[in-house]
């Protein structure tokens, strides 16, 4: 037994779960898939007096399409998202990013909400949520609130969630029309934490000019980065040449501050991020033109 002792709670409803969080505050931690939290407990990087296991709260699971958004319950597993036809059709970026997470054994337990609430800087889902302007449904014993992705991620393992709050679901806007998406990353081995990665979403008009763009980078700082300057430069144009894409890639990483660590230097991460931003944009535009989502 490697984790320190804790009291285990297995609520079956959201109301029970948020009551427990209200009662125990900072001393309680919600346990989702456990694929990040349990290693941290085993290594004693984290310790909690109370674990609130969400795996028996059925109302936190499931994928549903409503009013132009795809609502993904926080406890929906990554394996479910990976193989769900509605996800692939409505939010292709989620389907593209999922196989890059860990390994299939990890995705069988790992959840969408767990990954987002854990907010590892190298993880894929936070960047997808940021690029698409997803909205987070948050509950506590005093009510519910909605947090836009732009305000949710605050830093390494830091989010806007209070100790008494629970992430219930995430709503991803469904991009209709002539759209294309791409997601790519560089990691030492498949399933390792990404050294750097990029997400691109574009919408084109009839003459293939970009009318809407969402670009986000991960592994490039303590939180995912939305490349708004590059998006603004992109909208209204049709970047065709390698030089155009290189310039957009450079603009995307201009204000990032990736870490220098044993896995990669900051300058290497910036070069990889720049390359991937350009590459994912090119891929997303090509997919939009060829009508491949």
């Amino acid at each position: 037994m490697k984790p320190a002792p804790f009291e285990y709670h297995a609520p079956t409803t959201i109301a029970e779960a948020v009551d427990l969080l209200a009662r125990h505050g900072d001393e309680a931690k919600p346990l989702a898939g456990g694929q990040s939290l349990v290693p941290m407990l085993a290594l004693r990087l984290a310790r909690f007096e109370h674990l609130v296991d969400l795996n028996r709260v059925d109302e936190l699971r499931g994928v549903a399409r409503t009013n132009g958004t795809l609502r993904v319950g926080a406890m929906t597993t990554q394996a479910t998202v990976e193989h769900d036809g509605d996800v692939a059709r409505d939010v292709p970026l989620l389907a593209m990013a999922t196989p890059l997470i860990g390994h299939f054994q990890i995705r069988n337990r790992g959840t969408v909400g767990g990954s987002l609430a854990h907010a590892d800087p190298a993880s894929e889902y936070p960047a997808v949520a940021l690029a698409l302007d997803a909205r987070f449904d948050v509950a506590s014993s005093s009510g519910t609130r909605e947090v836009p992705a732009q305000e949710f991620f605050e830093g390494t393992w830091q989010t806007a969630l209070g100790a008494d709050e629970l992430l219930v679901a995430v709503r991803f806007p469904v991009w209709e029309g002539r759209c294309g998406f791409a997601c790519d990353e560089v990691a030492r081995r498949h399933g390792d934490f990404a050294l750097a990665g990029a997400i691109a979403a574009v919408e084109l008009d009839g003459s293939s000019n970009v009318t809407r763009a969402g670009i986000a980078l991960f592994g490039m700082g303590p939180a995912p980065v939305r490349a708004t300057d590059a998006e603004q430069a992109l909208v209204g144009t049709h970047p065709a040449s390698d030089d155009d894409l290189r310039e957009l890639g450079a603009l995307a990483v201009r204000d990032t501050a990736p870490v220098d660590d044993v896995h990669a230097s900051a300058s290497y991460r910036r070069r990889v991020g720049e390359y991937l931003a350009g590459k994912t944009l090119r891929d997303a535009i090509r997919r939009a033109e060829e009508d491949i989502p």
Partner: protein
Amino acid sequence: MIEGTALDVTMTVNGERRRAHVDARKTLADFLREDCALTGTHLGCEHGVCGACTVLVDGAAVRSCLMFAVQADGADVTTIEGIAEPDGELSTVQAAFRDAHGLQCGFCTPGFVVSVTAFLRDNPHPTDAEIREALSGNLCRCTGYQGIIKAVHLAAERVAERNAGAGAGVTA
């Protein structure tokens, strides 16, 4: 609501009903090894990296070091001891690992065999790239992986041959 620092758990392990009173912090891996005396589930890293402790929980391959035993209350668990036929005959995957030299010291083998059993059940006709990706969640320090990759190809071929012979419906 189930809660406490130590709880009663009941689950089915390899078809047999198991009951124990365990600390909440006890992992499923430790429960299998210590309370069920099923030491075929190996512990390498104990933080989700090496894959040696992989078991099937309700059919899904998972790291048993990243689940607490209390979370598996009511579940149907299959360990490496439950992979062979009841008469002891090796499963298709096990026989392929033996025949293709997919193991040397054997420490990582239970995790590989359980992972590959689930993988071929869900994807009976994998490409070489899919096999390599599926194996990426298990670490082996002896073989250099080539024998293991060959073993998965061999197991998939044998399943396909058997299905061609028997009609359909049979898997690893």
